[in-house]
């Protein structure tokens, strides 16, 4: 199987401080790779570098063999990489449906003049995007909320909306930053199924999640970060037995559980 996402030697410094250092791993199509680690380990920073939001100081990111390091997110989106955010980045004043449609931006975008004068070509493109967006909203159980303003939704519903928006791009690589945070047990299980389903369709998934049960259940491979460095990686059962991991992360987590 060819590797879809290949990260090697990735690192970034903020004001002289090394936030992430020399992190590398691969994600294959259909595979779910989770990045875990205590708070402040650099998981979200890593995501921001891979998705082009931050420019890494060292290392490289390859998407299906192409070097895409430091490429702007909108160009990465065109190459099939999409993501969600830990602290929701929803278009609050737009409706739920419009949020979902915005995920189809690349598909519905056409000449500006068609938009200004509502030419038939624009209507057919936008109509198709709307149909697909509604289907996607049904899939994340937001069909009934389509016409509501996004800001009126609950936190869990917004999480699902963000996943829907990311899926709308029909990505080859999907980065999910704590998709189940703030969700109840039922919602978490739904998201769990959704992720597995998406992975089964051949998408490479990179996941940051605090819900250890979920991570252990659905991941094919786990990368453990601590203080910005990779301290271990492997299959879930290997990682959970690794003493370094237990010390850095699972130890504190187990004490809380």
């Amino acid at each position, binding site marked *: 199987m060819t590797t879809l996402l290949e990260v090697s030697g990735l690192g970034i410094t903020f004001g002289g401080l090394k936030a992430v250092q020399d992190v590398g791993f691969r994600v294959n199509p259909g595979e779910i790779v989770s990045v875990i680690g205590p708070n402040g380990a650099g998981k979200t920073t890593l995501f921001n570098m891979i998705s082009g939001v931050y420019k890494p100081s060292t290392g490289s990111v390859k998407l299906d063999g192409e070097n895409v390091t430091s490429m702007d997110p*909108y160009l990465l989106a065109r190459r099939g990489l999409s993501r969600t955010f830990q602290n929701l980045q929803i278009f609050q*004043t737009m409706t739920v449906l419009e949020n979902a449609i915005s995920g189809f*931006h690349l598909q519905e975008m056409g000449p500006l003049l068609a938009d200004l004068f509502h030419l038939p070509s624009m209507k057919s493109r936008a109509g198709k995007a709307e149909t697909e967006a509604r289907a996607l909203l049904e899939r994340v159980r937001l069909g009934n909320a389509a016409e509501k303003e996004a800001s009126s939704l609950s936190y869990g519903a917004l999480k699902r909306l963000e996943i829907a928006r990311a899926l709308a*791009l029909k990505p080859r690589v999907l980065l999910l930053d704590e998709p189940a945070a703030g969700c109840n047990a039922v919602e978490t299980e739904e998201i769990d199924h959704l992720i597995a389903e998406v992975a089964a369709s051949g998408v490479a998934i990179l996941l940051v999640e605090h819900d250890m049960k979920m991570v252990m259940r659905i991941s094919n491979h786990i990368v453990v970060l601590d203080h910005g460095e990779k301290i271990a990686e492997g299959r879930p059962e290997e990682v959970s037995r690794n003493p370094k991991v237990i010390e850095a992360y699972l130890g504190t987590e187990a004490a809380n559980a």
Partner: protein
Amino acid sequence: MVTKRVTLLILAILVIASPFFFPSSFYYRIGSLIFVNGLAVTGLVILIGYAGQISLGHAGFAGIGGYSCALLPAHLGLHPGIAAIVGAILSGAIAWLVGRPILRLKGHYLAIATLGFGILVSMVLANEAWLTKGPDGIEVPDLGLKDVLELVGLDLSNSQFWYWFSGIAFVIGAWVALNLYDSPSGRALRALHGSEIAARTVGIDVARLKLQAFVISAVYASLAGSLLALQNKFITPDVAGFMHSIEWVTMAVLGGAGSVLGAFFGAAILTTLPQVLTVFQEYEQILLGLVMMLCMIFMRDGLLPSVLRLIRGKDK
């Protein structure tokens, strides 16, 4: 949100029905000024309300549009109507050139850069007297359309003609802006307003879309400047001045920067207000400043959204 059809209906009714209530022909003049301002403000609604970008220099484009109507007929022999269109294209081209570097800036930095641009335009218009005849202004030729209408039997007074002409221009401008709102580009603009970072991750070319919004709004401002010049048959560099830019931005924000209907009400209020305030003579400025402050303090989302919320709140 008020839908596109309802908005257009309300605007059309306002344009058509208002003259029935005009006590004198002077009101046609105010009506047409409202529409001209409304047109420019609609452009700013696209830039500020949809895309969330600020400009304190859009009157500069009105200056380009207005002076095109004065200079192109005089020097190149163009028809004033054609001159207005050439002016709009020129404004769009300048907006495109200036916007590329400027729109990378955010918030107050964008504000000062656009402000600087507007001031530069008004200075050039005031100082290059060999071309523009300087601060005292320059004459603008007649559009000639009124005479054509007379030939086909439509006999309108000058102020009536400009009322209907500006009114139609404004409704068309509103229609285009409403089209844009509910289109892929409009959604992308509103998306980048909501979260630029998320907009980029869904594939939106943020720089390009901001530039498009800037160019479109510049064309609106330019056409408004041309309309103003043509109906006054005269134009001065003040049309491009800082206070004119501010007036338009205030109208946009006062009405509720996100909506075209708001643009109309903002333009209507702030165009009529000074006419009313002249009664208070020397207290005019005090009252104008006071109104600006009070509106923004008590209706920070603008008039229309605040009123709509009040109505909906009562429904519940």
